[in-house]
């Protein structure tokens, strides 16, 4: 079989000592980049790019791919331990991961994230090997109306994340939507709600907002709580540092679903790992028998999103390798790199450079294995951070966050933005407004708006375009189905209330 012989050839390329070394360097750097908040995989790849000129392109790409998926593993660590998402795609992990850490189960969260990421990574590479062409063709059917429908579905799922008070969740969501329209409108080039701030022309950046709402807000609330130390009733004995059988049983379907969601969303250009992890979390909560556990330390809430962001990182490589189109910021930088090495990503790459393509694919098996080993072995080291007294840890979190956010753009504006959202997050927490809907709306709002307007341009103003296209119509129907239980409950509540007064509804 062509694919198997390709893979065999790929393993021969990937398992040369030099390429094993580059895979190791890649995943290690990726892990570090994942841990550091602010600096993300695109910046990591771009930083290392100049070092690779003159190198064998296959080795360079093995390293870059390693950075990409390595960062997905690394982003988990700070999310779980200190409630600071290391990557945008790890935001959802903070919701339950940090709660688990507070319960002394940081090791379980990290372990299940590593195992989930590993399963997701390996499965995605297998899907990549066998179905890349078929999948990318399917992805091309996703035009603006389909993106819009997907975003509608995502938003209906988000409504399930709104916590105890749907109204408060909804307000948080609207705030996020509002923030998502700040900046220059791409369709007209006009600035919106920028108040003359040049920095706001490119919109409200996600990372400072996320770090403020989670990391900084957490520090502020912990300072307010008077009790010293006793921050984690951490039982850091070895036995408790790894997931239990029960954790695994609870997470296995979440890992599987997360993998599939992540992989498919990852293939879609412009959607990406962050969107994938958010959808995965929302799906897990929606499907759970005990949704009330989510946000209070549900292990599936860590397993699903963590698997999905890793699968998305692999999925995102598909349009790059098969069509020569970068689907995410990181793959775009990789594409630039490939061009400089004299390789033209595109349909001919598989034929003209099979060694390169299959070598890269095979290296991902190796890279994921290395990451699994690193992430499980070092759990005791990572969790020992929690032995620090709270006061010292707080100082670290703040220093870490400020430096991380500053490093994105070398901009103090972002630091102020983060601190501002730290305050916002603190008050939201006090008043029990959930922060997750705000962040989701901030990320997804831009795609929602853009795809809506593109679709309406395509149809010259007719909203029927969403219903006449099968994929978009099915996604919208699915959104309705998702909303149904909520609507039903709402209507039932209403009708019960109305029964007493017997007002006929017409």
């Amino acid at each position, binding site marked *: 079989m062509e694919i198997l012989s390709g893979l065999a050839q790929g393993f021969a390329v990937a398992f040369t000592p030099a390429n094993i070394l580059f895979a190791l360097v890649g995943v290690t750097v990726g892990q570090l980049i994942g841990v550091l908040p602010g600096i993300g995989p695109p910046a990591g790849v771009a930083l290392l790019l100049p070092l690779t000129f003159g190198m064998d392109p296959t080795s360079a790409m093995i390293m870059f791919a390693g950075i990409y998926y390595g960062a997905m593993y690394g982003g988990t660590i700070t999310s779980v331990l200190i409630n600071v998402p290391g990557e945008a795609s790890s935001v959802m992990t903070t919701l339950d991961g940090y709660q688990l850490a507070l319960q002394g189960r940081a090791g379980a969260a990290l372990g299940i994230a590593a195992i989930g990421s590993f399963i997701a990574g390996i499965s995605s590479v297998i899907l990549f090997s066998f179905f890349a062409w078929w999948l990318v063709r399917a992805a091309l059917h996703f035009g603006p109306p389909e993106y819009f429908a997907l975003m509608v579905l995502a938003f209906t799922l988000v409504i399930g994340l709104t916590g105890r008070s749907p109204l408060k969740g909804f307000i948080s969501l609207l705030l996020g939507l509002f923030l998502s329209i700040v900046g*220059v409108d791409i369709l007209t*080039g006009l600035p919106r709600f920028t108040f003359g701030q040049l920095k706001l022309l490119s919109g409200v950046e996600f990372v400072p907002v996320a770090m403020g709402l989670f990391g900084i807000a957490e520090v502020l609330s912990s300072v307010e709580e008077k009790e010293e130390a006793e921050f984690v009733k951490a039982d850091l004995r070895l036995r408790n540092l790894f997931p239990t059988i029960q954790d695994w049983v609870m997470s296995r379907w979440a890992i599987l679903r997360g993998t599939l969601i992540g992989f498919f969303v990852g293939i879609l250009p412009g959607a990406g790992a962050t969107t994938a992890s958010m959808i995965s979390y929302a799906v897990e909560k929606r499907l759970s028998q005990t949704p009330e556990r989510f946000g209070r330390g549900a292990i599936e809430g860590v397993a699903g999103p963590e698997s999905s962001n890793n699968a998305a990182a692999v999925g995102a490589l598909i349009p790059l390798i098969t069509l020569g*189109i970068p689907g995410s910021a990181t793959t775009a930088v990789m*594409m630039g790199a490939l061009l*400089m090495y004299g390789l033209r990503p595109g*349909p001919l790459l598989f034929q003209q450079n099979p060694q390169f393509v299959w070598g890269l694919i095979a290296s991902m098996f190796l890279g994921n294995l290395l990451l699994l080993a690193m992430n499980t072995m070092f759990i005791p080291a990572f969790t020992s951070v929690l032995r620090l007294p709270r006061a010292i840890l707080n100082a670290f979190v703040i220093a870490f966050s400020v430096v991380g956010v500053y490093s994105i753009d070398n901009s103090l504006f972002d630091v102020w933005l983060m601190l501002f959202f730290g305050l916002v997050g603190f008050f939201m927490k006090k008043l029990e407004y959930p922060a997750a809907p705000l962040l989701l709306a901030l990320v997804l709002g831009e795609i929602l708006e853009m795809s809506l307007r593109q679709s309406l*341009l395509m149809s010259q103003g007719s909203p029927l375009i969403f219903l006449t296209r099968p994929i978009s119509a099915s996604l919208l129907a699915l959104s309705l189905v998702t909303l149904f239980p909520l609507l039903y409950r709402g209507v039932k509540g209403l009708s019960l209330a109305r029964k007493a007064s017997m007002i006929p509804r017409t």
Partner: protein
Amino acid sequence: MPFGVGGGSDILARNIAKVIQEEKLLPQPLVVVNKPGGSGAVGYSYVASKRGDPYVIATVSSSFWTTPLLGQSPVNYQHFTPVAGLVYDTYLLLVNQNSAIKSLRDLVEVAKRSPKLVTVGGTGATSDDAVVTYIFQKETGIQLNLIPFRSGGEVMTALLGRQVTIAWANPGEAIGQIEGKLARPLAVAAEKRLRQLPEVPTFKELGINLVFRQLRGVVMPLDVPRDAVKIMETALLKMAKSKSWQQNYVDRNMLVPAPMGSEEFGKAIVAINEMYKKVFTELGVIK
């Protein structure tokens, strides 16, 4: 770099960084930062705000002129120090390989029959894609429906997925998909046929007076020390002469070399601004 990753400007920026480093033309490596959005308004405003900072350069492509002219950017060419002109880049008009439209004549016919039905993928509503679409419409009397996307990569995805009927792309952006038989070029908006795509006719040959090229170059913020500009200018011109530049960038991306020093580039910037102003005024886009 005021544009998203994967487009023509991005490739330029990354190649400058590469050749400068390889040929050791500057003591420090250049780092490429993408600041896309608002048809360049975001990135250019950012660079212009770094007044006096000799460590920031920006690549210039058409939005450098068009966005400010349309009143959609707080900064215009007068907010920058010209450093060097580098290459001319032109535009290909593409359809999906499986499109029923086989030639430019087919396209014009279809568009005449049903105005606004043919969708065009482009980057930003005020980008070169939009300008060249305006000119194309004006010269042929047809009406197209322009759908803006965030990057050249997204435009190409939309074309391959047949979300849009036609798309504009720089030859270098599209060659991978053309060679891979996913997209088909109908015509090129250059004076002469491209050496690497000899079978693709020019618009002129087909009786449509459409020649459109964009000058790509490099600018710095205002108030940068004069010797810093000089150092950068010298490095860039040396780079433009190097073999690596010619082979890896100019040939591979199907460009025409146009090396210009600071002064000449400055004059070209003013001339191009006048050109856009004239076109926009003719088209009734600005008064």
